[in-house]
């Protein structure tokens, strides 16, 4: 094993050999950014959890195909984004799934299980400032590719090249997506951003 191997790639190589501890380590490290991406894509806490869970299950199942030359986080976010896109497509095909619809693989299981909201607070309640709420809403209204580009841009470990790889486009196209998304956000949030000028340091 090369000494300059990405530590996550090294963990993934262990996962390839069936090491559950290494897998747990990766889940612990990336569950937060994956949940952020999933929730800000589907805007539903239960679905975001299922989606994020599926991302990691997919990682485990695809471990044999993982090549250590690929950066793990890029590979992970590519899987996450693909599953998010699948969910968006599924929603557009079935805008309102029946509560009684059954799961395709388990006919005795409902298609979706809805958690009792009393046991879990949606993130809206945790949004502190009005600016954060407005940014969250404006992000939700962006086209999917612009939103994903901006959200992946928040991941410090990802370079523009890696964001481009996860989005399946060129670096210049990625920067253009971020630029256009930010232009829309600035236009929409102008009033809020100026109000918060004194509070927000550079």
């Amino acid at each position, binding site marked *: 094993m090369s000494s300059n191997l990405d530590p996550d790639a090294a963990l993934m190589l262990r996962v390839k050999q069936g090491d559950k501890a290494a897998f747990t380590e990766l889940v612990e490290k990336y569950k937060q950014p994956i949940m952020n991406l999933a929730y800000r894509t589907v805007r539903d806490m239960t679905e975001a959890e299922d989606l994020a869970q*599926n991302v990691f299950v997919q990682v485990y199942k695809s471990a044999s195909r993982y090549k250590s030359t690929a950066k793990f986080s890029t590979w992970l976010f590519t899987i996450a984004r693909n599953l998010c896109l699948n969910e968006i497509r599924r929603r557009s095909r079935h805008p309102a799934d029946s509560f009684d619809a059954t799961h395709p*693989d388990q006919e005795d299981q409902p298609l979706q299980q809805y958690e009792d909201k009393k046991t879990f607070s949606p993130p809206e309640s*945790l949004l502190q400032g009005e600016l954060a709420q407005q*940014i969250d809403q404006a992000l939700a209204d962006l086209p999917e590719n612009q939103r994903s580009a901006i959200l992946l841009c928040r991941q410090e470990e990802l370079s*523009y090249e890696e964001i481009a790889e996860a989005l399946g486009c060129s670096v210049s196209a990625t920067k253009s997506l971020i630029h256009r998304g930010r232009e829309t956000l600035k236009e929409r949030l102008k009033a809020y*951003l100026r109000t*918060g000028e004194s509070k927000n340091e*550079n």
Partner: protein
Amino acid sequence: MNEFDYKTLLEKRWRQKLTPAEEASVREWLAQHPESKADWDLETQLSAGLEKLPEVPVPSNFTARVLQAVERETALPKRSTTDSPRFMHVLRLRAPAAIVSVVLVLFVVTHHQHTQAKRAELVQGVKVVTGVSSLPSPEILQDFDTIRQLPASTGPDPELIALMK
């Protein structure tokens, strides 16, 4: 600093805070280009706002649930494709088309067999005709048309028979 450097620092600010030296360069640039000041301020405020977006809460048992899901996935025996509901769904959708195809194939096969049988019969007929070794000479048939035109109901002529006797 030129415009390209300014744009590069702007793109960098999308992702992270600038170093004090970079910030000084930007301030210097903005002093020379005051028309860019408002946009830079909006950019930095938006970046700060995005950085401050709250983290989405992750359930405390998230990792345990992922591991359980992985256990379930790995424990499941690989199902045959014919067991899957999707396969059955596809089968249901395509059954009418399959039935029509079978009927069509049966029709084509039957038609082919019928044509073959007719052809064999024809070949047999041709064989019979070619089997006739000799035909009467044309002289024998010279009065054929006259004989054919005689009335069919005409019986033996008793007068002629008497005379001949």
